[in-house]
């Protein structure tokens, strides 16, 4: 391993050692938003869900949309970092840590949305005592808790070498770092254990992540409501999750690149690759959406068409067409040619996708509920300040967790960067040779290093 005195990666440790004035400003602003969210939730807890805009036909609204949205973003982390690790793409090195952090942070907030949505949060323990496995909500609870534990471990294990570096280099928080470093000395045996663990987790976390969002979509597709009951919802939600995950990851990377001056590590090439990945996901998302609406339109079932036209030309048209533009038109326009000012294009694309995917969840949840099968009459849903407050509070809480994380641990994995520098080049070269037809098969005994 690189000797501790190596100063080339000082930029990565900078945020941990010194906290600039910007940090306090951001934390101040975020805690203001969180305060608004807290006040909003307290009024709702005290007076009841009546303070929100929900009403008889539309019993779900902002909170369920937020739930699906945040769980969607959580797929950024593990899926992308796991896939990149498995495919041994060298450019993943500065990205994986941030992706995994997004996952863990946003999972807490996503699960929290369900608790905010409850009419009687004081009876939350009923889920534990009288839980019922027939309900998709319980499937959600299981898979989300599995995903949470898996991604927490998947975040912690690659951090151990970095924490060890911190333990040795940084004077502050000695006890914390030494405990969390798990006695890491960088010995051969420890390295082997670490790599094998990361390899297993990378393989394990992908099916769990896919299962989480399929089960989140089952909350809707298991009911009999028009335009909810469709078989495409599982994969459609998983694609949507990866799509919004990548966008969120890009946004986070750009924010920290600017905030901590990590231009050296997060270079345009990274953003070009992620941009192309985003473009592929945008096309895939469009494919799924097109398939779903075509089947509804072609089937022409009266209740379905009632909801269909409510989305296309009815009261929800701005959200629907907004979604279509932000999720497909803008990303494709921006990401097709990433030659010049990549960063600007990728940023606009991923911001529009983040907004677009929130709209897509809103378009799935609310129009179906506001057009019931029986002739009830138009149920128009307008969110109130409580719901906006809760949304702002959730975003701010997620951002605050992330910023605090960067103050405690390096946002880019230092040891992976060093490993990339030392062994990465040679290893890639060997691997390339194995791909060529002339060379013989590599000896199996050679230990795989540097996942």
């Amino acid at each position: 391993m690189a000797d501790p005195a190596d100063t080339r990666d000082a930029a990565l440790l900078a945020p941990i050692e010194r906290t600039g004035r910007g940090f306090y400003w951001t934390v101040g602003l975020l805690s203001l938003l969180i305060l608004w969210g807290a006040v909003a939730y307290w009024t709702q807890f005290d007076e009841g869900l009546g303070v929100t805009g929900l009403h008889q036909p539309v019993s779900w609204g902002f909170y369920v949309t937020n739930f699906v949205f945040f769980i969607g973003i959580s797929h950024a982390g593990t899926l992308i970092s796991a896939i990149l690790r498995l495919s041994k793409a060298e450019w993943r090195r500065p990205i994986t840590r941030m992706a995994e952090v997004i996952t863990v942070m946003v999972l807490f907030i996503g699960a929290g949305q369900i608790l905010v949505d409850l009419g009687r949060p004081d009876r939350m323990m009923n889920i534990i005592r009288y839980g019922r496995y027939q309900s998709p909500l319980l499937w959600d609870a299981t898979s989300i808790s599995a995903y949470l534990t898996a991604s927490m471990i998947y975040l912690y294990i690659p951090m151990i070498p970095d924490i060890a570096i911190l333990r040795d280099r940084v004077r502050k928080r000695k006890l914390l770092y030494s405990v969390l470093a798990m006695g890491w000395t960088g010995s051969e045996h420890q390295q082997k254990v670490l790599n094998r663990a990361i390899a297993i987790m990378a393989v394990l976390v992908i099916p769990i992540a896919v299962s989480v969002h399929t089960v989140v979509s089952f909350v809707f597709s298991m009911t009999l409501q028009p335009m909810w009951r469709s078989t495409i919802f599982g994969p459609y939600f998983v694609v949507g999750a990866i799509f919004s995950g990548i966008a969120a990851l890009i946004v986070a990377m750009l924010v920290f690149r600017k905030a901590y001056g990590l231009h050296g590590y997060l270079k345009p090439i990274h953003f070009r690759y992620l941009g192309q990945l985003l473009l592929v996901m945008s096309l895939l998302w469009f494919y799924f959406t097109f398939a779903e609406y075509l089947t509804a339109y072609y089937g022409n079932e009266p209740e379905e068409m009632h909801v269909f036209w409510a989305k296309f030309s009815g009261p929800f048209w701005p959200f629907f067409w907004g979604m279509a533009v932000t999720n497909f038109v803008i990303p494709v326009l921006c990401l097709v040619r990433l030659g010049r000012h990549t960063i600007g294009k990728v940023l606009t694309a991923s911001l529009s996708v983040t907004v677009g995917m929130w709209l897509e969840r809103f378009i799935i949840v609310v129009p179906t509920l506001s057009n019931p099968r029986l002739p009830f009459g138009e149920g128009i849903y307008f969110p109130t300040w409580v719901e906006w407050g809760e949304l702002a509070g959730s975003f701010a809480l997620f951002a605050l967790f992330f910023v605090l994380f960067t103050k405690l641990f390096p946002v880019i994995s230092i040891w992976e960067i060093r490993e990339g520098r030392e062994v990465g080049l040679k290893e890639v070269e060997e691997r390339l040779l194995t791909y060529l037809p002339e060379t013989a098969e590599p000896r199996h005994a050679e230990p795989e290093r540097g996942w």
Partner: protein
Amino acid sequence: MALWGMVIDLDRCTGCQACVMACKAENNVPAVGAKEAVRGRIISWMQVLTEEDEEHPGEVKRFLPRPCLQCDDPPCTKVCPVYATYRDPDGIVAQIYARCIGCRFCMAACPYNAKYFNWYRYQKEAPGQNPDVSVRPKGVVEKCTFCHHRLQKARERALAERREVAPGEYVPACAEACPARAIIFGDLSDPGSEVFRLARSPRAFRLLEQLGTKPKVIYLTEGEGRG
């Protein structure tokens, strides 16, 4: 076990809403007040819906009283995460107000929207309320229970007098109050009952039958048909 069901004759029903008010009086369902009602939060377990006239759009063609249809394969009980709503042996979909956590999944799952939510604390103990039915707290879902408390009282009386529950003894408040006698209530499993006969009338149809929820409220269309 008895399979309690209801037949609603749409030819007789005049859309007068006596059933709606009788249900509210019997089950202490609150009036939610002007502001809340305009926001669409009226709680009315039995609700009279109006179907539009295809030939003359914008006009009303039919009044359709819709209680909870007490489905035999209820989509709402499947999705409840805490066993707060279940189909009891009498075939009535019950709701446990003390256990409901207010996640409103059953409201989203019910294709007939027969479930209602207490957005605020609408109900307080007040004089003139029916002591047999408990008042529901804030944040809890409530629904038509076929006046289940009347079944329990009828069963207790029958037990005390060591006899079976007589057919006409247990009748929900809406069936009792309907001026046009459009709501006929009885035991669908008893071949001698009026409900059993009318359920097989040529005019009989079930609401959203294609969803397979097997509702136990059967409607009879208007028109010339016999029965």
